[in-house]
């Protein structure tokens, strides 16, 4: 007892305490008095000791006042600190003895047996009252009175002195007086206060006769750290009272002082020493070093100058150390402690705090409290190759900047790399371990012994993914309970809220469901969902778990995918599976981490410097696209074309962000650049298509919004893709004899611009009258901007058109919406989409300024994916820029047309510069030297003059025409170039028609691209016209035809010029040969002049189409 007391006292005096207790101390100090001050410490009084006793007292006081608080003593330096204490305190032991005597004397003086303490207290009070008549101070002192109630000896007494000292300090100007007052007895005054004080002030000593819980706790802390807390928290103190103890403006302020890194403690101790040396010259009241705060210590003082003064000349402070004031509100935070340390036990989840496993989840396997060491089990992050190299004595590369990804160790793999694997039995528990290079492994896990310091145990919230990883195939279930219990232990306060639906997971009421009515501390009031039970039940929240039903719409409130919303699709115990609203991918979560919600959010899209859909480098070999961002990790679709490979990585595992804007070549050696739309021809995602988002090392990352996995991203080799809008192959086209045959015919330009889309609102038949299908079809594939209605301002690609509405695939949201035809703006060419202009096109801009305005019109052709590429050209494409060209849209004669087609594809495929979309004016632009002319096979370039000789384009001059590039076919060979069908440009590259389309169809006739199954009249020279059924369309445009109306006759091959469509009659089955519906079948339900009314089979939609694009379908089908 005695010893303990002494020890304690020493602690108190030395003021060395850990933060764990220091906050308590603050509390107790606070609780001990009603005045607001923090009893952080006090200025030292300059007392000139007049008597020996006084001097002793003073010294003691000084020492005590110096509450040098050092945060969280760690086991490792315990001994050292103890040593420090001893050094400092040694002399005090004597003093204490003296004090004892003194007290006794006093006691005698007072004539109050067993109440020496009281006396001190009185002294305190006196001092205080005299000095600054502050009521609060009274109370503060009163706090000390309580101790008087306990039979405490010197210890207590010294405590009072401490108090006194503090009180003194409150009056800043009273330092001189303090000493004198100190000795004066005012017994009477104090008596009254005594009881009330007792209420507040609690004993300092842990070894009280009447031990209270807190004291027990204190003792345990003491046992652990061999230190005692200075004072304790008074349970009886209500929160309101505590409020009053918060620091106020009248209290000394707390300053943050920068010091040399690593010398925080030293700084605090030095200040204490300085104080001891210099006495009350130093006007600071305390110095605090916190372990978790590097580079700074806190100093309590009334003025900044005092702090400066104190720090002056000390090695550990920089000459002009920065001193910042801690705002009053934050003062308490400085010394508050998160919570009591919890005992680590087996199976607790912890996180590593340092090293390459930093942040990783680990599970405690064994705890050695004596050595303060913990054995944890981790998923190893080791580079076997590096180990192999090391073991074989080869050069070990310098430390890698990035951390190898976590994965289970495969012993066989290690053996395969000639790494020696020892099989050892652990002497302690008899388990077998694999030992590699000094590391212990078992079941693929790494077992690591770490210091308790290097793990964090607080608020560990393992994510579902992490736990899932930990759950090895063989150990299903058994780990669950343990892991869940720790998960629950770490639940945040206020976890349940009124109205939450919950289910009992433990206790007698297991599986009972109910609703939360009210939540107190740990108890939750539940209204059970069952008959025969009381209206409300009060249960411990540990027995509860949030409950969701499939179909609930929830929001993730914590964990990796925090912020996301989705619908619950399955509930398995504590685990719920939800389908995210944005990605429509399932996410597994703990029920605890979600809350019901009705909103829709996407969650985070950015972490560190990486954003969703960035291309990143993982290590030297692998790279990928970020397809999902969670709060602490990223999902990356790796650049492995063979199969979709997704890795979950942490930001630090990423080496860097890559700008994937290189170029590649597709299967046909066409250049592929970012934003080009490609179709995948091989691999697992064959058939998908979409714009290229990144190109890196010959690998394309394609975004296909119809691809539901991996956020729509597909990874493919560039060689296994083709660029849409490019041509089926350069070689093929260049070598095309037809091309050369016709090349002498100069076509000014292609037809694209001329019969442009109809102006909005114009009746569709006005333009389409002559030839071609519905003008609206041209809209399909274009990028439009919605200018009215709920989607106002958004852009998207037109995917379908019907009646007065168009279906627009919004760029910003992955969905297709119906928009009124009149609500979209025509100049849709404008696009914000491409952040980097395509190389080809952008480079030419400066060369051909005159073309610029026209340029955008090409975009949709080349890039039917609705992502115009020319953002550089946006501005000029206004109507003003357009209109001048409109009338000129060069009509072309049939013959020319062919030549164009033939000549063009080559250039098309090879260079985006030669997009045929530019109207003739372009070529007249005085830029003869431009790259334009270099193009081989680009015949139309020279034909500058537009011709107006074609009646087919009579409707062209509509001012809106030029602005409708989108409707234009993307493939030069497509039927759109046929004079007969200027309007309905059928070929969307995605339609699949590309491959079968013959490059050209015989000019001059009204023929359309043949499609299988239609009836045709074959009229060959010298033969009668025979009816037949087209069976197959060959690549050169000719058709394999089975003669006979049912297609049961001979098979012939006919050139397109030799075939003619059979005009369907009413209620015949027809096939649409042109326009967006090309290839679809329907029934001709009526004929109106040159228009046919067709009811499509697929959509049941009734449309009006030009008769000449309708072909009768063979009967047999």
């Amino acid at each position: 007892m005695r010893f303990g007391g002494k020890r304690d006292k020493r602690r108190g005096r030395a003021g060395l305490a850990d933060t764990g207790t220091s906050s308590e101390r603050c509390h107790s100090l606070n609780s001990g008095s009603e005045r607001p001050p923090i009893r952080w410490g006090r200025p030292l009084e300059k007392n000139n000791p007049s008597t020996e006793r006084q001097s002793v007292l003073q010294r003691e006081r000084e020492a005590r006042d110096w509450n040098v608080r050092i945060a969280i003593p760690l086991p490792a330096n315990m001994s050292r600190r103890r040593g420090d204490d001893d050094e400092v305190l040694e002399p005090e032991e004597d003093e204490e003895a003296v004090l004892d005597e003194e007290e006794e004397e006093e006691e005698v003086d007072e004539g109050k047996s067993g109440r020496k303490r009281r006396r001190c207290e009185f002294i305190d009070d006196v001092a205080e009252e005299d000095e600054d008549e502050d009521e609060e101070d009274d109370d503060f002192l009163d706090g000390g009175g309580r101790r008087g109630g306990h039979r405490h000896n010197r210890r207590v007494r010294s405590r009072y002195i401490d108090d006194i000292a503090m009180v003194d300090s409150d009056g800043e100007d009273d330092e001189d007086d303090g000493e004198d007052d100190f000795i004066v007895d005012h017994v009477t005054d104090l008596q009254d206060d005594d009881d009330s004080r007792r209420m507040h002030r609690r004993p300092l000593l842990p070894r009280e006769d009447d031990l209270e819980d807190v004291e027990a706790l204190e003792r345990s802390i003491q046992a652990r750290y061999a230190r005692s807390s200075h004072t304790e928290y008074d349970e009886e103190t209500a929160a309101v009272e505590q409020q009053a103890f918060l620091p106020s403006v009248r209290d000394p302020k707390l300053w943050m002082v920068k010091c040399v890194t690593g010398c925080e403690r030293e700084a605090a101790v030095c200040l204490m020493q300085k104080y001891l040396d210099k006495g009350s010259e130093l006007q600071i009241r305390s110095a605090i070093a916190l372990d978790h705060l590097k580079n700074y210590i806190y100093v309590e003082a009334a003025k900044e100058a005092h702090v400066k003064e104190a720090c002056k000349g000390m090695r550990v402070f920089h000459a002009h150390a920065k001193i910042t004031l801690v705002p009053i509100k934050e003062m308490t935070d400085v010394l508050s402690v998160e919570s009591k340390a919890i005992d680590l036990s087996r199976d607790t989840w912890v996180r590593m705090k340092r090293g390459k496993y930093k942040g990783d989840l680990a599970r405690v396997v064994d705890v050695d409290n004596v050595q303060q060491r913990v054995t944890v089990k981790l998923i190893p992050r080791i580079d076997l190759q590096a180990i192999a190299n090391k073991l074989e004595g080869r050069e070990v590369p310098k430390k890698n900047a990035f951390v190898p990804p976590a994965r289970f160790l495969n012993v066989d793999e290690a053996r395969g790399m000639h790494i020696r694997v020892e099989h050892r039995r652990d002497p302690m528990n008899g388990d077998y371990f694999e030992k590699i290079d000094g590391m212990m492994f078992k079941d693929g896990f790494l077992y690591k012994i770490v210091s308790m310091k290097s793990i964090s145990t607080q608020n560990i919230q393992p994510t579902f993914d992490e736990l899932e990883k930990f759950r090895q195939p063989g150990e299903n279930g058994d780990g669950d309970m343990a892991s869940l219990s720790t998960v629950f232990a770490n639940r945040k306060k206020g976890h349940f809220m009124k109205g939450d639906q919950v289910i009992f997971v433990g206790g007698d009421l297991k599986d009972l469901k109910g609703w939360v009515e009210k939540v107190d501390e740990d108890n939750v009031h539940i209204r059970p969902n069952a008959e025969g039970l009381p209206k409300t039940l009060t249960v411990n929240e540990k027995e509860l778990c949030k409950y969701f039903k499939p179909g609930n719409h929830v929001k993730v409130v914590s964990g990796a995918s925090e912020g996301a919303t989705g619908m619950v699709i399955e509930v398995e115990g504590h685990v719920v599976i939800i389908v995210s609203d944005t990605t429509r991918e399932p996410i597994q979560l703990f029920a605890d981490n979600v809350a019901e919600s009705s909103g829709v959010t996407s969650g985070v899209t950015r972490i560190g410097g990486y954003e969703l859909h960035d291309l990143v480098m993982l290590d030297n070999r692998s790279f990928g696209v970020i397809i999902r961002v969670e709060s602490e990790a990223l999902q990356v679709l790796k650049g492995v074309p063979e199969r979709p490979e997704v890795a979950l990585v942490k930001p630090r595992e990423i080496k860097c962000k890559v700008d994937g804007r290189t170029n590649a070549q597709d299967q046909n050696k066409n250049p592929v650049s970012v934003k080009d739309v490609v179709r995948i021809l091989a691999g697992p995602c064959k058939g998908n298509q979409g714009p290229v988002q990144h190109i890196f090392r010959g690998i394309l990352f394609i975004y296909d919004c119809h691809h539901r996995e991996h956020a729509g991203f597909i990874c493919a080799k560039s060689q296994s893709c083709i660029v849409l809008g490019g041509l089926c192959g350069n070689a093929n086209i260049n070598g095309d004899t037809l091309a050369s045959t016709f090349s002498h015919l100069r076509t000014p330009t292609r037809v694209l611009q001329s019969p442009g889309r109809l102006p909005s609102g114009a009746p569709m038949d006005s333009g389409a009258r002559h030839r071609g299908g519905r003008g609206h079809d041209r809209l399909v594939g274009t990028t439009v901007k919605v200018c009215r209605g709920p989607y106002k301002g958004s852009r998207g690609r037109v995917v379908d058109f019907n009646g007065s509405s168009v279906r627009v695939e919004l760029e910003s949201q992955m969905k297709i919406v119906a928009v009124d035809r009149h609500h979209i703006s025509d100049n849709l060419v404008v696009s914000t989409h491409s952040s980097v202009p395509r190389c080809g096109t952008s480079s030419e801009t400066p060369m051909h300024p005159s073309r610029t305005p026209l340029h955008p019109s090409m975009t949709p052709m080349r890039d039917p994916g609705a992502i115009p590429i020319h953002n550089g050209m946006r501005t000029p494409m206004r109507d003003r820029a357009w209109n001048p060209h409109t009338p000129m849209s060069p009509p072309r004669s049939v013959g020319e047309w062919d030549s164009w087609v033939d000549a063009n594809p080559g250039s098309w495929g090879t260079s985006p510069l030669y997009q045929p979309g530019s109207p003739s004016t372009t070529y007249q632009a005085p830029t003869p030297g431009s790259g334009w002319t270099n193009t081989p096979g680009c015949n139309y370039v020279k034909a500058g003059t537009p011709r107006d000789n074609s009646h087919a384009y009579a409707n062209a001059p509509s001012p809106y025409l030029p602005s409708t590039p989108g409707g234009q076919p993307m493939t030069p060979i497509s039927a759109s170039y046929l004079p007969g069908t200027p309007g309905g440009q059928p070929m969307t590259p995605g339609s699949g028609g590309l491959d079968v389309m013959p490059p050209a169809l015989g000019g001059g006739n009204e023929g359309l691209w043949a499609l299988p199954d239609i009836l045709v009249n074959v009229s060959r020279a010298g033969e009668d016209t025979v009816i037949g059924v087209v069976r197959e369309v060959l690549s050169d445009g000719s058709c394999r035809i089975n003669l006979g109306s049912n297609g049961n006759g001979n098979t012939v091959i006919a050139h397109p010029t030799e075939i003619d469509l059979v005009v369907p009659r009413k209620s015949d089955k027809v096939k649409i040969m042109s326009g967006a519906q090309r290839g679809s079948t329907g029934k001709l339900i009526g004929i109106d002049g040159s228009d046919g009314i067709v009811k499509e089979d697929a959509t049941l939609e009734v449309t009006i189409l030009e008769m000449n694009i309708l072909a009768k379908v063979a009967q047999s089908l």
Partner: protein
Amino acid sequence: MCGLHTLCECIEDLLELVVVHLSFLYYLYRLVSTHPTRSLPLHPPNQTVSVLADCFRELRMSGEEEENAAELKIGDEFLKAKCLMNCEVALILEHKYEQLQQMADDPMNQVSQVFEKSLQYVKRFSRYKNPDAVRQAREILSRYQLAEFELCVLGNLCPDTVEEAIAMVPSMKSRGRALDEEAIEKMLNDLSMIKKFD
């Protein structure tokens, strides 16, 4: 707009047949719309229903409301509204569609995406094609004290067995009605008869 008038007549016809209500929910629903501002016209029902909505919200607070068609918890207004079977909707929509076709020269009268999709859907999943059959089906079903909603689910799905019917419409059993298995079986038999003669 003559088309519209005819349409109304058509609806009345159907109502006479005790038409209407399909489980997957086409409702004939009366709405009053007032549109004080331009932005509102898109959601005509909002104002009229706000009172109801409030009640509903209150229910929600209690945590028990939970829409659940299996227990016939589909909200008051829908319980009161006529529920139409797919085939009935198909009739209505087709009728309307034809009307619109006749005025097809005006593209503004083209139908919405929703309309089109709904039409396709109901046509694909209509059990009874001709109007007489539809009429009979409703008649049969309406003999059995079914809620509108239940009636339509049965009419849409045409279960073959009693068990199936109960699985499809659990509320038939749970509500403690005088609907025994025999009755259900008879009902199903009658329904299948119509189908045969359809």
